[in-house]
Structure formats: C-alpha cells, structure tokens
C-alpha cells in the first residue's frame, strides 16, 4: 500500500542510484546522498563551514544536465535523478584525482596524515593508479611553523580552503589566506603573524591531507596503531565530545568528536593539548603513608584501614572533605553517601576553579568538568574560594581533625606548624599537597576512569576508560565504596554503571536516565540533556 501521508510542503524527493530519498528543501545533492547512505567523495565540503565547491571531486551525474555537477553545490530538486557512480562519473573523478596528485609530493612515508588521508583513500577508490605528470614539480614550504602548535606544508596542500574558512567563519580571526594564484597558489599567514587563535588545532583535524599538522603529534604515532575511545574532554565545563587516541596505554592525541548539542565539530587547543600539560609530579601508583616524617609505600588495604580509623575517631563536625568539581557523578554520589552514612556533620566543599572568561565559541571560564553535576547532586558548591578558605583555616586552627582531599590538588600549606590536621590526599600525581599529606591514595587519571560528567548546560555524557590504570589507582567512587565497607556500611557495586543506576533512581534530576537497558544506554554516544 503506497504511503499516502502528505509530505510537509517543504520536502522534496529525488532518486540517487536508484534509491528514492526525501529531504528538506535547501538540501544539497551531496547531503541527500549521505542521507541515502551513500558516501560521495569530498575534500572542500565540511558541514560546519560554508560551501566552497572548489575541489571538484564530488562530481555526480544528474540526468538532463549536460555536464557533471558538483553535488555539494547542487540543490536537490523534486524528481531529480542522480548517479553517483558509472563511467562518466568515474572518468571525472579519475581526472580530478590525477590533477590533485600531479604536484603532490611523495611524502606518505613521513606524513602524519597517512592512514586517515583522503588523497590516499580516494586514490585507492577512484584514481588511475599511474603517474603521467612527468614535469618538474612546483616547490613549496615544507615544515613551516605557522603558529605555536601548527606546522604547514604547502606542497601537500590541495587548496581546499577549509582551514581559511574555519578561521574566517568559526573563530572570526582570519589568520590564513591563499597567496599568489594559479598553480602557484599556497596557504600562509600575514608575514610575521601566526595562526594563534585558541582553536587552531581544529585546522589540523579538518585538513583532508597532511598540509597542516599538530606539532605535539608530529611523528609520534602512526594512526593505524591508534584506537579511538569516545570520551569527553575535562578541561572546562563545556565537556566537548572527544576521541582519546590511545596506543601503548597512552593517549597520543585528543580529537573532537562530532556532537551537535555540545561542541559541533570543534574543540579548543587547551583541551586538545591538556594531555601534554606538564604534571606536577610523578604519577602515583601506590598508597603511601607518612610515618616518622618520611613518606613510604604501604599496602592499599592498610591505607584504607588507617583512613577509616581516623574518620571513625573524628568528632562530629571534625571531618572536612574537599571534592573536586571534576569528579564524576558516580564519585560525587559516593561522597554524598559517605558524608551521610558514615560521618556526622562532615563539611563538604566543592571548590570553584575559574580562569579567564567564557568565550563565544566553546571555552568556559569554569575549568572543572562536572560542577553542574555536583550541583544537581545537591553538593555544596563554593563560589570564589570562600568556603574552601574557611575550611582550610579551620583545619589549620585545629577544629578540623581529618581533611580528605579528593582529586583537587590544593596550592599552599594545608597543615599547621603543629601538624594538624590529618590529611589524606586521593590524587593522581605526586607534588604539592601529595608530598605533604599524611596518607596518599592513588586515583585513576584522565583516560583511566569511567563515569559521567554533566556540562554547564546540563548535558550529561559518558566519560570512557581507554587506559589501564597505573598500579592500584582506583576510580574515586570505588575507593569510597571500599572505604565505606571498612567503616561498616555494606556497599557493593559491580561497575560505575550500577552507581549511575542508583543515582537515576534516587535523585530526581537524573530520572530521565532510568530507562530499560540502563543509564549508560540512555547516554549513548552523544549524551542527554537533563
């Protein structure tokens, strides 16, 4: 029975490779083909940028049009019949590929783009497989730094202008332009100036070839060894969806993952390069205790026992907990439970970390990953550092006996000259507070823990583990669960997903995650706005 539901007035139907597809008016043939599941080759087209139509690889055969048409510039029309394959189209693509490769250097063996290069892919699929261009090649700039993080190779460049359009349209900074003309066209910056906007790294992502490369990633790893783990950036409250590019139990690079509701296709340089930021000290893998003035490694169960004992012995109101606003929902939920079920009048502070201003694109001044999540869980948020300062002062004065610091490395002295309070630092790296603490418990670092973060706008996303944690470093929620068991409360979760399920059932704000199939399924790849 043919479908007789009336179509909305502004949709049209067209046939692509025999498949009929309905699209809204204003859709291009290339986008319509994507909707039909067909991947038309493209270099200069990018959904986040204006249409350029200059690479000419997306040529398709439209019935009744005498010449091949670029599908990225051709609007889909009612009743159009399109072929994305066939001899005429393949001839056209072969010609374009030949032109692109004519002056192109044979850099594949040393080019970072190898393995994720569209020239390689489309040559393989549509190229002629030979080289008829025997003329002398035009020389360009190789390895030219054009910014703090970006290296330019104009010989590899196919002048698709994606990078220029990005700097013009997304960041509005316009650092790049095409210089000269004809076969001598090349991309560059104004003499003496660089490509130094806070989002410069995105030009490397969108460059379809190896013309723009990231200095911090150059020659580090061939991409076919890298396993991409979908996760979330933790450098600010935006929570851009990212891929952890992992190999050798290391994150070699962060790249943005498309998410229409959070970061579209982009991420900022600070987030991208956070994996290269220098650590305050060595990575912690074992618990340590300070006996007789020196820190020494102790067994993990021993550490937990000591901490439990100190907490039990503290008088009501004598325990302070500093919980980082970058802990996951699961971590923070357990903090709430610990304070409610095992402690009396514990003072919990979630410190604020702000730097600079929110910008109009992605960057948030709030440099924590889950402050909104902490708020939604009902934890007390610090504004400025009022509560944190008060807590630390009380700790030094002696009215706080035990200070439990979870994931928030504090600058400056915490202990009074007399030695109060007892400080337990659950951190990822040595240095600073960890060196001064009485008890150190290692926690899972970025990429090692699994959990949920909620960004400033209430969008919750799943943060995924891509690395095996160092030593006995634990997710904070798991650490607290073990601690609570040591203190006599029978807590058992098989995974962080179970913790999230409990949150969804007990905390009103997270009710939308309580679906059949579980909250992780609810979050999916791109998260849920709560």
């Amino acid at each position, binding site marked *: 029975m043919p479908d007789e539901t009336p179509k909305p007035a502004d949709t049209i139907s067209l046939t692509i490779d025999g498949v009929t597809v309905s699209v809204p008016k204003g859709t291009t043939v290339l986008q319509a083909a994507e909707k039909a599941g067909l991947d038309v080759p493209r270099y200069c087209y990018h959904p986040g940028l204006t249409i350029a139509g200059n690479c000419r690889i997306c040529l398709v055969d439209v019935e009744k049009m005498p010449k091949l048409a670029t599908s990225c510039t051709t609007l889909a029309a009612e009743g159009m019949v399109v072929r994305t394959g066939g001899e005429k189209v393949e001839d056209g693509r072969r010609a374009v590929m030949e032109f692109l490769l004519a002056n192109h250097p044979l850099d594949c063996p040393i080019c970072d783009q190898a393995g994720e290069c569209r020239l390689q892919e489309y040559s393989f699929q549509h190229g002629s497989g030979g080289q008829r261009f025997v003329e002398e090649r035009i020389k360009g700039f190789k390895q030219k730094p054009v910014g703090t993080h970006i290296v330019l190779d104009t010989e590899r460049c196919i002048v698709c202008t994606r990078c220029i359009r990005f700097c013009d349209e997304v960041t509005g900074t316009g650092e790049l*332009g095409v210089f000269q003309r004809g076969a001598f066209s090349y991309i560059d910056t104004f003499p003496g100036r660089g490509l130094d906007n806070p989002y410069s790294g995105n030009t490397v992502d969108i460059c379809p070839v190896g013309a723009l490369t990231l200095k911090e990633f150059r020659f580090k790893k061939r991409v076919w060894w890298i396993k991409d783990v979908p996760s979330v950036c933790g450098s600010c409250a935006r929570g851009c969806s990212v891929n952890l590019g992992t190999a050798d139990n290391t994150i070699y690079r962060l790249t943005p993952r498309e998410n229409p509701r959070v970061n579209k296709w982009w991420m900022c340089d600070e987030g991208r390069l956070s994996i290269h930021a220098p650590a305050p000290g060595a990575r912690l893998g074992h618990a340590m205790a300070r006996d007789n003035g020196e820190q020494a490694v102790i067994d993990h169960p021993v550490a937990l026992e000591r901490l439990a004992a100190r907490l039990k012995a503290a008088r009501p109101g004598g325990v302070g907990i500093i919980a980082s606003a970058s802990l996951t929902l699961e971590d923070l939920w357990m903090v709430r439970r610990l304070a409610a079920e095992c402690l009396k009048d514990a003072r919990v502070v979630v410190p604020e970390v702000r730097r600079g201003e929110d910008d109009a694109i992605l960057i948030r001044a709030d440099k924590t990953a889950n402050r909104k999540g902490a708020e939604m869980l009902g934890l007390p948020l610090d504004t400025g550092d009022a509560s944190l300062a008060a807590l630390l002062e009380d700790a030094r004065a002696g009215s706080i006996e035990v200070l439990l610091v979870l994931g928030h490395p504090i600058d400056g002295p915490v202990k009074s000259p007399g030695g109060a309070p007892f400080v337990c630092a659950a951190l990822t790296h040595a240095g600073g507070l960890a060196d001064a603490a009485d008890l150190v418990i290692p926690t899972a670092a970025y990429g090692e823990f699994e959990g949920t973060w909620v960004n400033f706008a209430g969008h919750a996303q799943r943060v995924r583990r891509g690395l095996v944690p160092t030593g006995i470093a634990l997710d904070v929620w798991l650490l607290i669960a073990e601690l609570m068991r040591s203190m006599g409360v029978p807590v058992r979760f098989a995974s962080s997903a179970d913790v999230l399920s409990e949150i969804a059932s007990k905390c009103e704000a997270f009710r939308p995650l309580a679906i059949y199939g579980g909250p992780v399924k609810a979050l999916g790849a791109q998260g849920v706005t709560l």
Partner: protein
Amino acid sequence: MSGPLLRVGVRFAPSARDLSPEALGKIDEAIARYPEKRSALLPALWIAQQEQGYCAPRAQEQIAQKIGVSPAFVASVVSFYTMYHTQPVGRHVIDVCTTVSCWLRGSDALVGHLEKTLGIRVGETTADGRFTLRTVECLGSCGTAPMCQIGDDYHEDLTHDRIDAVLEGLR
C-alpha cells in the same frame, strides 16, 4: 627542460612606515564612494602603492583595519594581482607585453635588447634603482605591437631605437 626552479612564495619586503594622514584621508574618501566599504580595498592599495612605491606590510595592516578585514586577507589580495608590488621597485617599471600578438611582432627580441641594454634579467632592477624590467601578459594594444607599459604610459609600435629613446628620457 631549462628554466628556473619552480617555487612558490611571495616575498613581502618588511616595513614599519605608516601611511601619511593624506593617504589615509584619500582612503576614507574612497570608502565613502562605495555602497560597501570592502570595495575600497583595491583603491586603498593603489593609494598605498602610489605613496610608498609598493604595498608594504605596515600599510596593509592599516588598510585592513580601515576596511574591516584581517591583515592576512589584505595580503592575499595583494598577492593575487600582478600590478601590486610587494617589494620596492625601480623608479620606472618596464612591463613588456609578451603574449601572442606582441610575440608575433618581435617581443622576444625586444626583451633581449632591454636585458642587454640595462644589464639586468627579467624580474630584476638596475643597480641605480632606475629601471625594473618585467614581462607581462596582453596589455590590450595588439594593433601596435610590440609595446610596453612604463608607469601610466603605453609605448607602442616599438623598435629597439624607439625604446632606447624612451628610456633615455626617463630619469
């Protein structure tokens, strides 16, 4: 195949000289002539070149600010058009047409004669800063070939003697 190495690259001669208030004023006038100010970019570059002899980077930055575009945009426009210089040039720039009709009427020999007479190759400037020699494409004077343009003027129906006389008169 003989020929110079094929290499990209515009060389912008550095500069720290600001445009004069008069030049900036002329640019403002140019902006006022158009419905949209971005159209004044080419006129502004002509004004800068007239004053400083070439489109210097500092002037480009000032123009970028007035027009409301980025400096890189201005530089990319400068490098697209052959009449804007990115380096200082001789007092007189000799542009010899070498396209088909002029070639048919002896432009190759004319270029050779000029190279020999001036003692420089195409693209170079005489040591005394008097002449820069360039070859250009069709100047729209095919009926009076061979010919060249020096500054504002066309010099047509050239013979080697005629061009010698023209150069003699240019200090």
